[in-house]
């Protein structure tokens, strides 16, 4: 059925990494500029969908042998774990903490537990989107 998607495939090979990098940028920028876990996750999922459209399911599954359901679970674990972690410090569930830390190379950086929470969101969004698309796509 697919005969004439050489152009799409070639472009995808280049663009994919740009989108992925951009999505990671969006993810980390989230706290100060537009972006965040939700958008970052969606963008990554969008990149993967592009990959799916350009190549077929099997090829993509070979390149990225990821079980997206487990990815969803890990994401949930991250988010709930971050929330529950605050209980250990005797503050209400989901209380975040942040501090400025001097890291090598990066210099002064603000570290924030919200990032951990956002990683959870990021993973869940990718996991959910890809699970749905994969399941429906594989259904024959």
């Amino acid at each position, binding site marked *: 059925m697919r005969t004439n998607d050489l152009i799409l495939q070639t472009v995808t090979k280049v663009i994919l990494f740009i989108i992925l990098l951009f999505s990671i940028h*969006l993810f980390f*920028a*989230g*706290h*100060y*500029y*537009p*972006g*965040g*876990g*939700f*958008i970052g996750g*969606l*963008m990554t*999922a*969008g990149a993967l*969908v592009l990959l*799916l*459209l350009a190549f077929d399911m099997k090829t993509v599954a070979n390149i990225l042998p990821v079980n997206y*359901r487990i990815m*969803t*679970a890990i*994401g*949930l674990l991250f*988010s*709930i774990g971050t*929330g529950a972690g605050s209980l250990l410090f005797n503050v209400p*569930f*989901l209380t*975040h903490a*942040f501090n400025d830390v001097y890291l090598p190379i990066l210099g002064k950086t*603000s570290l*924030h537990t*919200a990032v951990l*929470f*956002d990683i*959870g*969101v990021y993973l*869940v*969004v990718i*996991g*959910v*989107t890809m*699970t*749905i*698309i994969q*399941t*429906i*796509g594989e*259904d024959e």
Partner: protein
Amino acid sequence: MSLLHLAIVSPLLLAVIIPIFSKSIRQIHTGWFVLPLPVVLFSYFLSFISTTSHQGTVYESFEWIPSLGINFAAKIDGLGLLFALLISGIGALVVLYSIYYLAKDKEQLGNFYVYLLLFMGAMLGVVLSDNLIVMYGFWELTSISSFLLIGYWYHREKSRYGAQKSMLITVFGGLAMLGGIILLYIMTGSFSISEIVAQSDIVLEHTLLIPAILCFLLGAFTKSAQFPFHIWLPDAMEAPTPVSAYLHSATMVKAGIYLVARMSPVFAESPVWLWLVGGFGIVTLFWGSFSAVKQTDLKSILAFSTVSQLGLIMSLLGVGAAALHYDGIDDNVFTVATTAAVFHLINHATFKGSLFMVVGIVDHETGTRDIRKLGGLMHLMPVTFTLAIIGAFSMAGLPPFNGFLSKEMFFTGMVNILKLDLFSLSTWGLLFPVLAWIASVFTFIYSMKLVFRTFTGKYKPEGLKKKPHEAPLGMLISPVVLGSLVIIFGLFPNILSHNLISPAMASILPSLLSPGDIFDVHIYFWHGPTPELFMTIGVVILGILLYLTLPKWEKAYHLLPEKLTLNKIYDRGLESIQSGSFKLTRFYMNGYIRTYLVYIFAFFILILGYTLYTKDAFVIDTTNVSSIGFYEIVLSLLIVVATITILFAKSRLTSIILLGAVGYTVALFFVVFRAPDLALTQLVIETVSVALFLLCFYHLPKFKKEESKIPFKLTNALISIGVGAIVTAIALSANSTKLFDSISQFYVDNTYIRAAGKNMVNVILVDFRGFDTLFEICVLAIASLGIFAMIKLRLTRGKEG
């Protein structure tokens, strides 16, 4: 959290760990890891005897939901301690027995012990909580763990049937009890049992008294298998025998008894209580023993016998309430019924526990429990035979076993009721001793049948699956312990009277005691030639006669037509409920998504329109509205045009692209309104969903030409216009009505100071309203798993078919 709380939940904690043991250490039977816990618990609870025997109590509270008055309050008093000892003591013996009963290489031991521990913890929770809501939680957990244990051999049809039946009946009762708890809360404003007991005079005068009593008794009667709810207990015998010995004779079915005893201080002064508890108890006693005689399966005999013995204890508790109408305790002849109830509770646990284990041994060594195939096992299994004699003779009420003593006291209690000139007991009360006596005759008959049909008579090896021999030593330990207790309690009953019986009575009948007083319980072997002695002699003589002539009158049991039995009524009731609800559902669930959409949207319009109308909420206020710019007009026109074009699209591809266009235009709107986060999200979402639509589109059937001319449908048109109108109206009104000050200033002020972020939207998402996000991603995850499950399951089923 105190040590007592830890003791209560320790079985539940162990239940979490035990699967690891059963998986990783396969050489050792999992039961050995479980066994230490009940032993430790038993000795721990024993240490409280010195406290309770001096009328002391131990109270530990742990705040759970203090705003609703729900605290995990644990209280040890005489009654609770007696039950806790039974649960942990019999529990230890049953676990030991099960190690030899369940083969480690054939059974799923992990599951078994998890369920058993779950039950043990739940049961301890029931008898030691002072808070009714907490007790209710544990109460339902006992129902669930009992369900799991009955259905342990889930590949058997009968196990599943029995499990479902017990679940339906006991949970029904549990819910009724919850209703009773709420009624009590309305009356007294407290969930704490101690506080409710202190206010019992308010409860007794309240108009809700009778409904509350009925609700509680429904809970107690279903759990303790009282007539007519007893039908689940015989079917529960599909569980492995250690479970039957533990749950369905010694502990869980006594939870109902516990509940009645526990609530006695609140309700017992009401005549309704006396008549209901006593009446249902005595009828159950009679019906259970009557039905037990006709059974041919050893476990069925024991099941019906348990039903009848539970009825006996229940009736004693009911009759014991008469003592409250009589002043003083020194010459109070009615307290003997309560004494007998507590005493028989202990005795029943010992002899019935050992009998169940004996039956389990017979089943294990011969491969059958059918009394018609068994016989002559006496010489092959001498120890088991001796144990069976001890248990059955005690059950029949023969000296010198403990059953004799409590049976005598039972008769005393029943005869004494005639002396009371209250609630028309002096006339109708005659039924109590008469039924009690007849039931005892039947008890005698089935006890004899149980022993002599199995162990004497002709040995029939051809009908047995295995070659019978004596059970291994480990399997005999537990029944031997229980059997010796039967004899010890029979010969020296007074070791129990001060330590356990008297404190338990103090919990059941507290109002009879002045402070510092105790019930002076003394159990005598020989009372002289009293009516009860003659009643016992009569039972023995008539029992022997009837047992010997059993084949001649057994046919009388077939007089009651099959169709009218309670089991048939239950089965047919269940079936008609199922088919009825199926029909009702089929009436509106026809399988077409478009029909469901019609329902959903119709209700949407009705409810929201109604609310808008009645609350007078529709307002249009244009004072705060900014002027409409050029871009906004263009974009809205674009959306309208694209939407209308969808309606006339001839192919699916066009529709999808048009829908995408609508979505992207909305994203542009966000750009115009300077909301970059939303714009980005909308853009990516639109991209992904267009891809998704394309995928789905690939799977849909061909777009048929005939369908392209969809006939105009008035209802659908009305509904679609209605939904649009309502949503528009709500949006306009929402914008025009400001009930509260906007919260946005809070975020503007605090985003950087409190959350160290500059992007307000994201800080709200992950920090200020992190809970929302957390639940949203949970919903997303559930939805994706749902889609995955639906599609994958359908695929596998398709392959099978």
